[in-house]
């Protein structure tokens, strides 16, 4: 009886956490990314050589890891997420496109509007990584074509980051008015938390299956060279930063304590922290491989904990059709 009365005054489960997730995780992450990318463009304007640009590139990639899981909303428009980071890249499109532009000294890099029409494999963080870290490409001088190309990428990234940040202000209002008449995107209150929940599980799946799964390959055929942003030493760092962002999102999204989820995040972070293998190159030998596989299993265990603790409480499930093939 008393419990029933108490429950009646609790917030509607469907609304739980959306405002907190937007305020505590999403909007700060979009601001940080916009600021970092803006600083990258500023750095390029001052000195576009590879050594000068690398710190700002690393900062921008760090900031991107705070929001790369937000694959709905502003990032899914016009392929922005893939343009910002063209990865995975099983067909080597980034290297091919970057080398193509560089060998032709394509003048498109001098024109911001024109550059925004370049193949997305030739834009964004992965193209910039080629210019800044590839042994053959990165030795360019201040007057060389790759310097202008790197500047164009930096400016393009800054423009996208600024647009995404601005649009997230609008999109967050759309999420907070989920289910109200005239809301074209979120037809019911529950759809906003469902979108966040899907992004949370999707981010963990991406960490386990792509960021770790691609270099792991198979036991007989490990693929260490497929690790994400390997040239710039980011494979393990990206996992740690992504997990940190996803943990913040999980905490914000749930309106109840989530001890099992928190413990699962801590276990994975501890393993990642002890790995001492920034490029995940160890996937090629049995001992190193085992450690990466353990991390992969721990990340999958986070998803299980989230489904039990958050999904169950909010009445959310993974997609009815997306989980069912035919």
């Amino acid at each position, binding site marked *: 009886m008393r419990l029933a009365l108490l429950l009646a005054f609790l917030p509607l489960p469907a609304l739980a956490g959306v405002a907190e997730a937007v305020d505590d995780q999403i909007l700060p992450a979009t601001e940080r990314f916009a600021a970092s990318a803006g600083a990258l463009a500023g750095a390029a304007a001052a000195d576009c050589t590879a050594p000068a640009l690398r710190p700002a590139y690393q900062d921008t990639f760090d900031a991107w890891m705070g929001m790369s899981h937000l694959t709905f909303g502003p990032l*899914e428009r016009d392929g922005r997420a893939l343009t910002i980071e063209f990865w995975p890249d099983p*067909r080597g499109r980034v290297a091919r496109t970057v080398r193509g532009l560089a060998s032709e000294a394509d003048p498109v890099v001098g024109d911001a509007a024109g550059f925004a029409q370049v193949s997305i494999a030739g834009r964004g963080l992965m193209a910039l990584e080629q210019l800044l870290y590839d042994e053959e490409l990165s030795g360019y001088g201040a007057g060389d074509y790759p310097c202008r190309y790197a500047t164009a990428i930096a400016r393009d990234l800054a423009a996208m980051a600024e647009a995404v940040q601005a649009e997230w202000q609008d999109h967050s209002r759309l999420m907070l008015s989920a289910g109200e008449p005239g809301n074209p995107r979120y037809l019911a209150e529950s759809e906003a938390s469902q979108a966040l929940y899907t992004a949370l599980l999707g981010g963990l799946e991406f960490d386990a299956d792509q960021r770790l799964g691609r270099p792991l390959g198979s036991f007989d055929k490990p693929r260490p060279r497929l690790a994400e942003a390997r040239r710039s030493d980011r494979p393990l760092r990206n996992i740690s930063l992504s997990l940190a962002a996803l943990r913040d999102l999980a905490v914000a999204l749930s309106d109840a304590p989530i001890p099992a989820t928190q413990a699962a995040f801590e276990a994975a972070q501890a393993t990642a922290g002890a790995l001492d293998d920034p490029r995940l190159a160890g996937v090629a030998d049995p001992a190193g491989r085992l450690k990466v596989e353990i991390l992969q299993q721990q990340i999958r265990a986070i998803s299980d904990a989230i489904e039990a603790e958050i999904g169950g409480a909010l009445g959310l499930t993974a997609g*009815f*059709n997306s989980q069912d093939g035919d």
Partner: protein
Amino acid sequence: MRRRGFLTALLAGAMAPRLSWADVGSPAVLGAAREAGGGYALFGIGADGTDRFRIPLPARGHAAAAHPTAPEAVAFARSPGSFAVVLNCVTGAVLARLEAPEGRHFYGHGTFIAGGEILCTSENDFATGQGRMGLWSRGLGWRRVGEIPTHGIGPHEIRRMAGDVLVAANGGYRSHPAQPGVKLDLDRMRPNLAYVSADGALLEKVELADDLRPNSIRHIALGRDGLVGFGMQWQGDPAEGVPLLGLHRRGAAPVLDRMPVHEARAMAGYVGSVAFDAAGDQVAISSPRGGRVQVFDDTGRHLQAILREDVCGIAAVAGGGFLLSDGLGGLMRADGQIRPLAKRPGRAWDHHLVPVSA
């Protein structure tokens, strides 16, 4: 209630009138769904998104086949199902339960030929892996009267074209009911689109280039002047971003979609449904895994991406555009803009919206 009782009485009597889809509210499409209580039902849905009828189903359905004139629907269990039910959409009565014969299972789709007298069902002869179409006679109380080959492995959707030519999407890989959900022989897969006469003769077979062998041809829609749209499911790396829609007209070479690479990759290598609009000017494919629908013109030129979580069902609606359904209970009208028509919390629309012709 009273009307339903009256109709039941009528049907039971000798003076049963000839019923049409108008007697169940002229639904534009049929769609199966899981309901809030966890049960499953088949719905008739109007072009405005309203429910026109509801019939409980014994289990999760996959697709349905609508009789061309009579308000009767065949609901298929999910693959590898061994049964389908024929429903009277006026009374909800089960008119027949179709059991796949020994050594066969249904793949979840079917279509009518011979003016609605013969139902064709896509089936697996799982000892050999050869695709079959089972033939069932409505006039003989839904008795199985024969079967014809689909001329490929793993057929999924089949459709009737003019002159009772059947077009079958042969997915290209084997499956076996002892291992549900497992795709067998993927490294040897060889999908095709086969045009088959009602007596089983192969009229034309379409295969894609060797590098697209892993692209399983699974769903079909019919456009203008014999144009066939086929939706594919890529069994390779989804990050390769390959074409997922093909367009084919008999006697010509198939044409593949030209999607921007970010949209192709966002589809996650998976097409759940394909449909042309009413005029046949546009064709759309859906990916619940990518949460989006891609719209093309009838030459495969990309027009638009429509974003909607867990979207899968697509059907043409009179007046232009598409009706879309999703696993969150949403029904939308997409005609340039996307407009919500109905939202039924707790209801999860399943893969397909099946047009009702009347």
